């Protein structure tokens, strides 16, 4: 018996025989290519570079509030991938030396790496690792373009792979294996998020799995703990059998809990929704059985393709999402919240010294109206299939709402003319994340069908504290009394004008902050999927009256004190 520990990506417990998918993704081709194949190989190389760039973009969106160091490294890799001369040099090797694309990449980078090894400078020679990394990323992306997992997976097996990319996760799903074990991979990657939705246990980062396991070895996979046991002993097998008997019951209990309405201790109904980024996430039980999707981020649509998709292809995605909710539960689609810092190149925007204070969110959309129109058209067409709502990001003035509404009206007119069905009563609301909109919430409410408070940006703008600056992270939080006051103002304005006020920022997923928000009058929470069960339990622990009193008692204090008392309150 031997035990292996990795990252838990998707839960579940299953036993079975392994099958190794030794796809040999890093071994490059031998020999030479024909003249007629040159262009095809150059194209495949260029595709792999483009894919690598957008892959890093995607990684960066996840790392936003995390590891700064890792961000810097990835950004520098991206710079190298965007180097026109790198592209030309490799193309020359393919064209002149008739080397296959993967081998050309390998030789080119190895030359660099050898060269750097000769340099007598510790700092500089460490760069070798960067080049090694970039080389592997390109080669991997080149090879994955033509791998089909179905060729490898036969029957009910536990699949073991070296690495995984999103398209591979989806093709694995179709071949119904028992579980997936991957040697490498980050829990924050796009692959990890999609892997959560395929409904089988998935574990990343079991080192050397392909060497440690042999074909048909018997293993038990503990998805919840990220653990694999090779050749388990009697005791483990017995436990497993008992578990399997109970498994159905436990799953049923979880579903039952999810299906019960979310109520406070005094039976006040609370709306509990999820934040998602990918359509596949709708299939997770946590999303299926709650009150809908309070935040569907759409930025991934851009990062997947490195271009803004057409109305038609967006329509398909929004429709796929909303068709998961035939019972009329809402999905709040937030229009693209991207900024000049990421799109400078494509749009010839000026370099922004402060991208967070620059042309992003609705400012970008109102400047590049065609992109906005395509997205609106996509959402409107999908609105015929369910309860979709439009949510506008980074609203700073009423003028921006009016302009957006005019644009939406124009697209509606177009659809009417073409006799294409859509919901002409579709709700259009705004994110409250810039202080101006919270301060004048009473006036903004007259122009919006709902408010959704984004606490991460609101905190950053109220306190002038960059949310990615770790040195400021502890001191400048959404527990700051000024942030709390603006949330209170927004909730009050919403009540007065009879529009819904939701909160979809990190704060709604923070079990310590939830009782505070209930005490402020918030009744709608949109939280990270992984936190749904925890937040549902927290919501049921208190009565509204007790939380209102608790807030009154502690309202005039510091953020540290507020954090402390609410931590105390929620401690079990």
């Amino acid at each position, binding site marked *: 018996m031997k035990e292996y520990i990795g990252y838990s990506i998707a839960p579940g417990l299953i036993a079975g025989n392994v099958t190794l998918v030794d796809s040999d993704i890093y071994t490059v081709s031998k020999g030479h290519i024909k003249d007629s194949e040159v262009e095809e190989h150059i194209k495949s190389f260029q595709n792999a570079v483009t894919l690598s760039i957008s892959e890093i973009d995607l990684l960066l969106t996840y790392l936003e509030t995390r590891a700064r160091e890792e961000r*810097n490294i990835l950004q520098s890799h991206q*710079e190298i991938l965007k*180097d026109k*001369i*790198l592209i030309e040099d490799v193309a020359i090797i393919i064209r002149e030396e008739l080397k296959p694309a993967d081998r050309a990449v390998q030789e080119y980078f190895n030359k660099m790496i050898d060269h750097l090894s000769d340099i007598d400078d510790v700092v*500089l020679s460490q760069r070798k690792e960067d080049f090694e990394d970039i080389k592997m990323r390109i080669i991997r992306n080149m090879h994955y373009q033509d791998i089909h997992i179905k060729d490898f997976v036969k029957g009910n097996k536990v699949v073991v792979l070296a690495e995984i990319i999103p398209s591979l996760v989806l093709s694995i799903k179709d071949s119904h294996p028992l579980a997936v074990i991957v040697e490498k991979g980050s829990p924050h990657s796009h692959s990890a998020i999609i892997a959560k939705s395929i409904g089988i246990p998935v574990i990343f980062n079991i080192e050397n799995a392909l060497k440690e396991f042999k074909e048909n070895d018997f293993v038990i996979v503990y998805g919840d703990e990220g653990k694999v046991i090779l050749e388990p002993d009697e005791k483990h097998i017995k436990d497993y059998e008992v578990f399997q008997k109970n498994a159905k019951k436990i799953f049923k209990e979880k579903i039952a809990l999810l299906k019960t309405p979310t109520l406070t201790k005094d039976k006040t109904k609370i709306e509990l929704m999820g934040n998602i980024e990918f359509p596949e996430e709708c299939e997770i039980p946590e999303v299926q059985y709650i009150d809908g999707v309070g935040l569907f981020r759409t930025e991934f649509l851009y990062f997947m393709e490195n271009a803004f998709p057409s109305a038609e292809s967006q329509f398909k995605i929004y429709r796929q999402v909303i068709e998961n909710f035939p019972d009329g539960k809402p999905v709040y689609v937030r229009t693209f919240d991207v900024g000049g810092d990421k799109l400078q190149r494509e749009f010839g925007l000026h370099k922004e010294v402060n991208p967070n204070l620059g042309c992003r969110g609705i400012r970008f959309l109102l400047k590049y109206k065609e992109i906005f129109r395509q997205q609106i058209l996509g959402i409107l067409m999908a609105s015929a299939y369910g309860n979709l709502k439009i949510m506008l990001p980074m609203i700073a003035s009423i003028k921006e709402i009016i302009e957006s509404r005019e644009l939406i009206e124009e697209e509606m007119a177009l659809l009417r003319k073409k006799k294409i069905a859509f919901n002409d009563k579709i709700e259009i609301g705004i994110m409250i994340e810039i202080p101006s909109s919270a301060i004048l919430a009473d006036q903004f409410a007259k122009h919006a069908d709902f408010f959704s408070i984004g606490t991460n940006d609101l905190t950053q703008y109220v306190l002038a504290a960059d949310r990615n600056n770790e040195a400021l992270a502890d001191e400048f939080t959404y527990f700051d009394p000024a942030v709390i006051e603006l949330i209170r103002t927004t909730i009050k304005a919403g009540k007065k004008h009879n529009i819904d006020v939701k909160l979809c920022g990190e704060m709604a997923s923070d079990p310590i902050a939830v009782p505070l928000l209930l005490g402020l009058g918030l009744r709608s929470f949109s939280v990270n999927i992984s936190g749904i069960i925890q937040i549902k339990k927290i919501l049921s622990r208190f009565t509204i009256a007790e939380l209102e009193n608790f807030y009154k008692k502690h309202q005039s204090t510091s953020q540290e004190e507020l954090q402390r008392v609410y931590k105390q309150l929620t401690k079990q």
Partner: protein
Amino acid sequence: MITITVMLTNKLGIHVRPASLISKTASKYKSNFLIRKDDMEINGKSVMGIMMLGAGKDTELELFFDGVDEQEMMEEIVELFEEKFGEE
């Protein structure tokens, strides 16, 4: 053509960030830009090229600017070196 010699004074030498800063800045101009270290000469508009130099702290580099906007290009590039790429 303008030729100028600069000394690398920042602690880490030309790692990826300075290399991309230099190449990005150079790419804004039409003129050609070459960097020479010992007997090695590379295109200053390429991140890979600049990194290949393997230039650490206290290395001397020769910069060559040649073209219609060489003066402006030289001024902006030299400023980057003088400011130690904004690192210290």
